[in-house]
């Protein structure tokens, strides 16, 4: 029996070894884009919180750059003054809403309200209204954007992630590492890589008409022109950092991370209170259990 087991395990080792080599060969040949680097975010990990000033700068980038194509329909103006966000003053938000170029369609239960001439009525936004983009609907957006659809940005940081394909042996370790660090910033890492990822296409790649080369984008060609450039915003616009692409990309990514997860600050703060309670209670319960069981031995 013993001899047979030994024989079987020796054979198994040979077969496993052969298969491992073939796995490694497969991993080496399958092509992927450039690795998306993890960034340092103030809101990262289990203790990170949003930086109010960064969110304010990020909103400025959104307002001055992104909002010319992209809406933010799941965010209301009033959210901009709530705790844990950019925390703009309420009066400033009211003014911002009133001046927002993309006004709110007047709606009744049957749909939109038309004026005497049949034209659809719109009104200035109030703080309780959503932050709309320039297009009334997807068809209008596609018509204006050469067939491409600029997605709504409210949830974009949660709706994107970085796909990693580590070797199966290190995979569980990397997972555990992420769990212990509380890593959830894949979407932010991707957005930052995208915003800073515009380069000239490699010689062997033909970029289609109206498309731009970007190493971070799946397929490497996208319809969005590079939105940021150095000095795109200046101090005159109210942007208070050196106006590099890197700074603006970081700030707007932080802002988009907040719009996708506006309760992050509160969630982590309560999380630590809950953890503290659970740890102390677990310890007390364990001591109680030990005492109860000590009578038995």
């Amino acid at each position: 029996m013993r001899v047979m087991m030994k024989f079987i395990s020796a054979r198994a080792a040979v077969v496993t070894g052969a298969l491992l080599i073939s796995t490694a060969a497969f991993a080496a040949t399958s092509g992927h884009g450039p690795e998306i680097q993890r960034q340092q975010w103030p809101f990262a990990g289990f203790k990170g919180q949003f930086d109010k000033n960064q969110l304010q700068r990020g909103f400025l980038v959104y307002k001055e750059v992104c909002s010319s194509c992209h809406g933010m329909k799941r965010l209301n103006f009033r959210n901009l003054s709530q705790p844990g966000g950019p925390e703009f003053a309420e009066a400033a938000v009211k003014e911002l809403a009133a001046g927002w170029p993309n006004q709110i369609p007047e709606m009744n239960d049957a749909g939109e309200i038309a004026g005497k001439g049949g034209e659809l009525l719109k009104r200035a936004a109030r703080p309780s209204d959503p932050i709309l983009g320039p297009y009334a609907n997807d068809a209008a957006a596609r018509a204006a954007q050469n067939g491409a659809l600029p997605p709504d940005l409210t949830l974009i940081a949660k709706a994107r992630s970085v796909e990693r394909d580590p070797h199966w042996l290190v995979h569980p370790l990397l997972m555990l590492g992420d769990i212990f660090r509380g890593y959830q910033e894949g979407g932010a890492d991707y957005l930052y890589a995208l915003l800073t990822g515009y380069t000239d296409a490699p010689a062997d790649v033909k970029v289609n008409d109206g498309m731009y080369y970007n190493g971070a984008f799946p397929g490497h060609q996208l319809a969005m022109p590079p939105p940021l450039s150095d000095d795109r915003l200046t101090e005159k616009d109210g942007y208070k950092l050196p106006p590099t692409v890197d700074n603006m990309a970081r700030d707007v990514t932080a802002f988009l991370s907040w719009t996708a997860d506006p309760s992050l600050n509160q969630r982590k703060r309560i999380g630590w209170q809950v953890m503290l309670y659970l740890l102390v209670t677990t310890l007390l319960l364990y001591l109680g259990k030990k005492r109860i069981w000590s009578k038995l031995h």
Partner: protein
Amino acid sequence: MSGHASTYEPKSRWGKWWDERLPIARLMHGSFVDFPTPRNLNYLWTFGGILSFCLVAQIVTGIVLAMHYQPSDVAAFNSIEHIRRDVNFGWMMRNFHAVGASMFFIAVYIHIFRGLYYGSYKAPREVLWILGVIILLLMMASAFLGYTLPWGQMSFWGVTVITNLFSALDTIWAGLGTSIVEWLWGGYSVSGVTLNRFFSLHYLLPFVLTGVVVLHIWALHTAGQNNPTGLDIKQPSDAVPMHPYATSKDVVGMFMFLIVFAWFAFFLPDYLGHADNYIEANPLVTPPHIVPEWYFLPFYAILRAFTGSFLGIPLGSFAKLFGVLAMFGSILVLAFVPWLDTSRVRSAKYRPIFKWFFWAFAFTCVALGYLGSKPAEGVYVMWAQIFTVLYFLFFFVAMPVIGLIETPKKLPKSITEAVLGDRAAAVSAKH
């Protein structure tokens, strides 16, 4: 609900009055207070209580979420965002419910592997075990239906892929599968109609589940708990009253579990989900990789292992049918485990060969889970096929054969001896 007579004595007139009319306090006392529990249960035995907690937590958070959720194709996705953003502590309820589903599965898988290791399925606990398999199936159905409700891209396409599995029955009887799929969908594609009925069923199943859990606990308290030695309780010193002994250990286990639960719910609420589910469902755009939730990945790997050929054997048009049968079979086979295992000894602690195969099987399940997360191409398919074979070999070959050829280690005379060793005689005599 217990196989032993309750020692309950009503102390007040009020208690007496009830005891003569509806002796529910007597039942609870007999089942959860003085019920004899093996004295050697380790922390793996705390998962029964943890699972009861998970069930109640899912029902409570689910009821609250249903107050704010709108089961319609146009409103579902928005209503989830409404819960996350506008409902007071809605983000917390939603995280508890979504993370809770994953935690429920972590707990149930540990519970099942514990049962497999210590032989908790063996006589007289076959019915208890089969009820457990039914609970697992109901859990899976509930989780699958629930994952539809956010109506994101992965919800929509997950439902499309999984419900489409039934169309494999067309190979047996032309039109049968398609009819079943259309009946499930309530139309010719996954739509708002499908979402409505899935919401209704998602609300129903947990209560069915609760009913089966009551039977599961009833069967447990009739046969008595298994324990790490696999020995029966033979003398009073083998057991301790459930309260305060088992209960004090249960709460420690539960709080340790809650630490993990809270870590995910507060710091990693989306870690176990998929980014694509933050994109509203769109029937016109298929995500590049459609993957189910992590707890279905091993079964998904088995399903996809059946491509045009299986380890060189051509399957032709039957590939899909075999995949579907293998996937459902991989769960249903659990129901036959009490009879597939031929060993006279319950606990793997005393089974030198089986122990190795148990861990090999555990590795097989993890490997299948990993492969389920990978695209079905290249070597991944071959590995999925190999591990699928190993999965079934464990049940159909390892379990029956090892029981026949293995010489178990010497069993202790009693649970007391296993715990106390030489001092056992003194303690037994004292009782």
